[in-house]
């Protein structure tokens, strides 16, 4: 039982990062019906930018650990949001009227571009975040030793998700985003500036991806230029698992994916872990073809 709970927290920690990245996929998908294959690379850019900002400004000399994290997060979110918006303007907007898959190829091209740009700028070797930013101690909860950082990761992700959810549900811009997600043409007729909505989505999604990258950097320490591909794929899986286009779905899908991975590794096989994850995913989709929280679209005939 102890082991089970331990693995559960392991899974939730990983899953919360997947969830944060998955949010970006799902938001963009909701409005544009586009799988932004470059999203994982925006996440990696966030991780690298975080490192650059941290080392060039020597933030930890002036601020306490929480201060560093918050200032970094804000800066990274801002910068990655700009990259995301530029990506949308350059690589996706010209393809908006084209077949959906055309934009997918453009996204893949952008992904290759970003990944290699990171390699050229930062080099192919692993990059490492300084070790002394975050506290190393563990807290004891119900007899468990849980590293404090891990709790912070989990907490930050959940906070971000709640904030995003409230933003989408309660604000005017959020309503416009939801309207555009349901029917772009109708939204346009209702006087919603769809271009602006898309731009906002391409600011928020990448910002969340970027902050996830920063968290991975701070938490795990090690980053490399190919990391976006792996995390991107996992997060896309999470978004689909939850029902793509659905914001709570991305959260549930991400956390669940992390837990499935941890449990697969714990109780079945470590080497087959990723295969088990995909098998579970396929099984779930066979039963629920539009993911856990996805709407069931009945055929309108």
């Amino acid at each position, binding site marked *: 039982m102890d082991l089970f709970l331990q693995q559960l927290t392991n899974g939730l920690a990983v899953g919360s990062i997947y969830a944060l990245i998955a949010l970006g996929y799902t938001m963009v998908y909701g409005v544009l019906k586009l799988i932004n294959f470059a999203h994982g690379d925006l996440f990696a850019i966030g991780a690298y930018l975080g490192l650059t900002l941290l080392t060039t400004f020597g933030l930890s000399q002036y601020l306490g650990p929480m201060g560093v994290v918050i200032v970094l997060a804000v800066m990274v979110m801002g910068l990655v949001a700009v990259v995301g918006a530029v990506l949308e303007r350059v690589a996706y907007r010209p393809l908006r009227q084209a077949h959906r898959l055309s934009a997918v190829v453009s996204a893949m091209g952008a992904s290759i571009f970003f990944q290699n740009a990171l390699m050229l700028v930062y080099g192919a070797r*692993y990059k*490492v975040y300084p070790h002394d930013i975050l506290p190393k101690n563990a807290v004891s909860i119900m007899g468990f030793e849980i590293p404090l950082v891990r709790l912070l990761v989990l907490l930050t992700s959940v906070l971000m998700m709640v904030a995003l959810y409230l933003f989408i549900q309660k604000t005017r811009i959020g309503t416009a985003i939801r309207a555009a997600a349901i029917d772009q043409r109708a939204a346009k007729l209702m006087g919603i500036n769809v271009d602006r909505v898309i731009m906002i989505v391409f600011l928020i999604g990448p910002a969340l991806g970027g902050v996830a990258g920063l968290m991975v950097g701070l938490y795990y320490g090690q980053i490399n230029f190919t990391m976006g591909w792996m995390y991107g794929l996992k997060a896309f899986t999470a978004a689909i698992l939850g029902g793509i286009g659905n914001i709570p779905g991305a959260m549930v899908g991400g956390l669940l994916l992390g837990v499935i*991975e941890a449990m697969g590794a714990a109780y079945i096989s470590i080497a087959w872990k990723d295969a088990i994850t995909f098998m579970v995913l396929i099984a779930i989709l066979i039963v629920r073809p539009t993911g856990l929280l996805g709407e069931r679209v009945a055929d309108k005939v």
Partner: protein
Amino acid sequence: MKKMSVFMLVLMIGLLGAGSALADDPVRIGLMAPLTGAWASEGQDMKQIVELLAESLNAAGGINGRKVQVITADDGGDPRTAALAAQRLSTQKIVAVIGTYGSAVTEASQGIYDEMDIIQVANGSTAIRLSEKGLKHFLRTCPRDDEQGLVAYQTLKDGGYKSIGILHDNSSYAKGLADEAKTLLDKDGANIVFFEALTPKQNDYTAILTRMRASNPDVVFFTGYYGEAGLLLRQKMEMNWPVPFIGGDATNNPDLVKIAGNAAAKGFRFLSPPVPQDLDTPEAKAFMESYRGKYNGEPGSVWAVLAGDGFRVVAKAIEATGSEDPGKIVAYLKNELKDFPGLTGPISFDAKGDRVGDLYRLYEVDAGGKFVLLP
């Protein structure tokens, strides 16, 4: 439509025109390395080192008065790209090729070089079978997995551990080493409580560590690469698990300490051929000096340095035989070259083209994050 046809035409001409090779004076030596892809850092190091050595060789007058030209091809760390790279290099009138890193990648190129009578000196491909095929022109400056397996077995045995966990990453190399060590330990009746593979390039290994911890080993032997090893050490410390880790030679990279942090890396031991920093031969010292001078840092790993050794033995053999005949060069390397002063210690080859001598040393990471050679 017209634009299209022009485009096709240009493409065809490009393909037709780009392939012409020029014949000229210098001794041409190929380098096949993973300049892009997952192992790009190793490949770029290999290129830096071989180019540096070629430069200093040329500055010193070249081989028998002839300049050396290094021709590099990117194998992408992937067998299919490697086969292409090999085809590309074999049209470039090279005498020998240095490289490459991964065993499967080397394997995909071996046949092509052999058919073209080009000497291949691999630097990081430790899979046993590569030299068991009877290829005439294949050599390597790195030791084989069975040798390291034997050393690993000795180390684990001498440590007196009662229960042993073995973790690899399912790569051809790490799996080979893990299997080799396990076979020897099993013969001895050692208690292996854990034998599994992790998935590389994923940041979170806590699930695996938690499970491994439950099987309660006295020591863990990890045969994979330094990136994962660093994370394992770090996450192991975060969960307050004091078990000692021993790594295979792929963990020999200063980045390991950077990733794990000094505190977590302290006490980690690994097997490796000695790195040039630890050799006090004049060659190694001179090399390190010029490397630091040019690239302002240390070489990333011993494998890239072994590519440098490959280059040096080939240059030596061409000089000694005064010939570019592959048969003569290989015969010289296998039969006459004895204890050549390499950057990684004395180099000799056996009849299969494998490097002779027990190369492995045991290193430990000290509190300051330095790799200390254990006696």
